[in-house]
């Protein structure tokens, strides 16, 4: 057991209590790091690397963040932050979007800001670019849906970086078409909901969570009294002096994009550029604005003048709360703790690390997942155990990637014939199981569930059974050396089966055991029971694999 000593801070000359982390085994460490950063199990070679040199965890993590799968994790992380993968967000199949499937139209609304952040991280740009970039990323349907961009190569297809041609001054994700569509504004609220989103997602300071004091001094039913109060009544000014100037930046953006309004626009023939028709304008710097006439505050950021989104992005990037909030969000996501559960000292340490690294998201992620606390099984000699991140839970997106990687099976449903397209059932909530399996639906299920639930186990069981069936079909027709997972299974003799079980225990159950270990005896007993219950070895193998793929060690890592 690798033990790491640390001393709790303690003043007054007392002997600090000595606490000792009980580290995970090398196999468990490799898998936990790999799962957190990539949503994939560590390979045998990677496990061996940590077994040979336990100090190689940083090297391993640094390799992981250079890979494509880390980009997927970044997308998933910020999907929970911005909640853009919203089950109720969709566009109608109309105009230039005719011929698209619902899943393709969903991607228009779900992925644009996430792709932007992923690109920034993948290309080693500072994370602050997420609020300063003056470009975006669109796929082929997004390029058709949104107006005012250039540089998309339709022949190439896929997601590409494009430039705005409508004068959007920067602001990164804050001015992406999809974020504007997701976070619409009721006209009378003058984009304050969007300002709240900005403050919540980027600074971890939601205005909406604050209490509205029950004050007898303002007649809330009197519009003019309310308008006056947000300038003069101290309890109102306290929020509005900060909220309203952020909201003011959105004056030049389209307030709302709804399915209903789009259809309505097409019904009347899309009479002007302001109509909600494709390709849709989401920004116009020519909209006349007279803040004083509207009783609104001018653009600003907590007392600083910003002018436009470029200034806003610059101000946010320079705000220490941005670094602190993003560090906290990374820690929260990667270690599955609520934002509020990140200890202050840890948060400050991560914030410092992020700033000193030049807002290097990869370095931050590596730092988090290689910390002794994250790689600990327990603590002895103190009371710090309850602060450990502890066992991690397979997110639905991770379940998809893990099972695909291990077995070649993807839990999808082909529904193109009814206009939906290929539905990724672990990354969808319309007919899929993302929120039901612990994820968020971007709408009313706003926070993930990090524990076992009956729904989650039902999903895991079904995926395990379907993946077992697919794996047997995919693998057993190949010779053993070219298989992904069943490469140790040369025949159905006991020795061959035990050799294969050792592989399954290492890859799926995160434990390194010998062929004659009790754990393998249990696995072989399962095989014998399965064989007795099955018509042939193939049925028994499916049963065995279905059991291993839904074991608690698959759910937890």
């Amino acid at each position: 057991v690798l033990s790491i000593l640390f001393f709790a801070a303690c003043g007054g000359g007392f002997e600090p209590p000595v606490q000792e982390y009980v580290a995970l085994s090398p196999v468990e460490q490799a898998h936990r790091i790999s799962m957190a950063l990539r949503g994939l199990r560590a390979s045998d070679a990677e496990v061996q690397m940590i077994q040979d040199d336990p100090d190689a965890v940083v090297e391993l993590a640094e390799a992981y963040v250079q890979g494509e799968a880390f980009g997927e994790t970044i997308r998933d992380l910020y999907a929970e932050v911005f909640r853009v993968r919203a089950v109720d967000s969709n566009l109608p199949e109309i105009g230039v979007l005719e011929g698209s499937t619902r899943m393709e139209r969903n991607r228009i609304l779900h992925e644009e800001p996430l792709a932007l952040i992923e690109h920034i991280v993948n290309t080693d740009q500072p994370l602050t670019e997420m609020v300063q970039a003056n470009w975006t990323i669109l796929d082929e349907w997004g390029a058709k849906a949104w107006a005012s961009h250039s540089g998309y190569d339709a022949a190439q297809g896929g997601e590409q970086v494009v430039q705005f041609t409508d004068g959007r001054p920067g602001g990164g994700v804050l001015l992406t078409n999809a974020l504007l569509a997701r976070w619409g504004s009721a006209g009378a609220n003058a984009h304050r909901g969007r300002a709240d989103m900005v403050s919540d997602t980027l600074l971890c300071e939601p205005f909406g969570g604050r209490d509205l004091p029950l004050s007898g001094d303002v007649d809330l039913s009197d519009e003019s009294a309310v308008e006056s109060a947000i300038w003069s009544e101290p309890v109102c000014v306290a929020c509005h002096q900060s909220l309203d100037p952020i909201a003011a930046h959105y004056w030049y953006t389209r307030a709302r994009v709804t399915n209903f309004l789009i259809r309505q626009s097409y019904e009347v023939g899309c009479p002007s550029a302001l109509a909600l028709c494709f390709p849709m304008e989401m920004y116009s710097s020519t909209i006349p604005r007279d803040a004083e006439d509207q009783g609104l505050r001018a653009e600003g950021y907590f007392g600083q003048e910003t002018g436009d989104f470029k200034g806003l992005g610059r101000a946010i990037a320079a705000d220490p709360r941005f670094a602190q909030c993003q560090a906290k969000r990374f820690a929260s996501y990667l270690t599955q703790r609520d934002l509020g559960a990140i200890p202050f000292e840890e948060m400050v340490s991560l914030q410092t690390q992020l700033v000193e690294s030049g807002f290097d998201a990869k370095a931050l992620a590596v730092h988090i997942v290689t910390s002794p606390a994250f790689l600990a099984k327990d603590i002895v000699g103190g009371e710090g155990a309850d602060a450990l991140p502890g066992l991690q839970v397979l997110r639905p997106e991770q379940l998809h990637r893990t099972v695909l990687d291990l077995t070649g099976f993807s839990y999808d449903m082909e529904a193109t014939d009814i206009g939906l397209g290929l539905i990724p059932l672990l990354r969808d909530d319309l007919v899929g199981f993302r929120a039901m399996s612990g994820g968020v639906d971007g709408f009313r299920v706003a926070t993930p569930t990090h524990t076992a639930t009956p729904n989650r186990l039902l999903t895991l069981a079904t995926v395990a059974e379907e993946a077992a069936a697919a794996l047997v079909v995919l693998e057993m027709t190949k010779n053993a050396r070219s298989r992904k997972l069943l490469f140790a299974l040369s025949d159905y003799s006991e020795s061959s089966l035990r050799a294969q079980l050792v592989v399954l225990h290492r890859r799926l159950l995160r434990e390194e055991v010998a062929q004659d270990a009790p754990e393998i005896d249990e696995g072989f007993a399962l095989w014998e029971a399965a064989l007795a219950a099955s018509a042939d070895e193939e049925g028994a193998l499916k049963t065995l694999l279905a059991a291993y793929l839904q074991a608690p060690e698959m759910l937890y890592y």
Partner: protein
Amino acid sequence: MKNKRISRRSFFAGAGTLGAASLFPLGGWAKESGGKRIILVQADGGWDTTFCLNPRLSSSAIDGPDQFSTMQGVDREEIVDFGNGGPDTLKVMINDAKRASVTTFFDNFASNSIIVNGIYTSSLVHEACRYRMITGTRSNESPDIGMIGGLLGSSEYAVPYLDLGGAGLFGTYSAMTLQLGRSNQIIAHLDRERELPGPRLGVTYPGFVPATAQQSAIEDFLLKRQDRLVGAGFGGASSVQRIADYREALDRKERVLVEAVSGGLLDQIEFGSTPGFGNQAELAVSLMSAGLCHSVGLDSGVSWDTHNQLEQQNELYKDLFLGLLSLSFGLKQVPGLWEETIVVVLSEMTRKPRMNTTGGKDHWPSTSALVFGGGISGGRTLGGSDAGLNALNVNLSSGLVDSSSSGSSLYYSSFVAGLAHAVGQDPAEWFPHEEVLHGIVD
């Protein structure tokens, strides 16, 4: 979180080593304790209470629902007294041309219904208000009142809290819940023999469904692995909780697989079909009566956020009360169910007294709720609001409006604490720092 009670963990501390069978003893603690089952209905988006529960005709301070009616014939907005005529009598806005279901509901169930008006939400933001109104706290990490009530059935029922609406909040009790999904997709997991479209055209699920003996071998293996996980030496609150949750969720999953068949669930839902509120209501009654679940969360299934077209509230109320009628008559048809159930219907906020410039109304930081059930002595209204829809102070011991200096604001937290008390949970345990609204059941 002030309301987190470790009842489930202490429950497991006693029962955890006894095996699955002993976790679910015959005989319901809920019934023995006198606790109620709860059905929580959310009307998401912010209803305009002047259309129904807090009836107001247009005045200098309020734009009422009468602005959308001809006020002739049956298309007439009318404030009707469905109660005893006293100062706390139950008054409702009716319009039989637009919302006849409202009239029908109160004609039948007013004597078992209470309206609570003037609940102050302390926020104008949808999510913040929703969390407050269903949990009594500002946090979405707290369990909602449906979950709190459902815990009374944690030992007797496979599913203490069935979240049919998909918008429930469970706190640390997620392992005791079940969701069917927006399109009833759970059927793909409960009925594994059923053919469904597969990952490629022409391919169908299932690819492999273990036969009974194969399934038995799988379950034996999972239990062994579960035991190994318990003994693996993971420490700390998070790991301990997650391991305990696995044990609980696995037990409940197995029970659901059995009871979904015996309780008729599989016959009542169809893959790909999004259940409307009426369907949810019928299903709730069916599954409660079958004993699958103790308490249920429902959702009206439509948005009440009428910033632009306030008149839509007519249709929204009509459909909501059609569903509530179905729910109520259904509950009454099952012996004992009407008496042992409290239905709470709420929306996270109401709408401003006056219209905005785009044909709708914006957010207003107070709301109303409808509480009914066979055990409710109804025909009454608790709380209230003034001519401008500002919440009035109340006497929390009675729930009646109290404009004297001793009156208290009726905050969301007191309201939810009052619901906890009404269903038989101890509000002092769940809401130790809150004053409790009385008057719902005593």
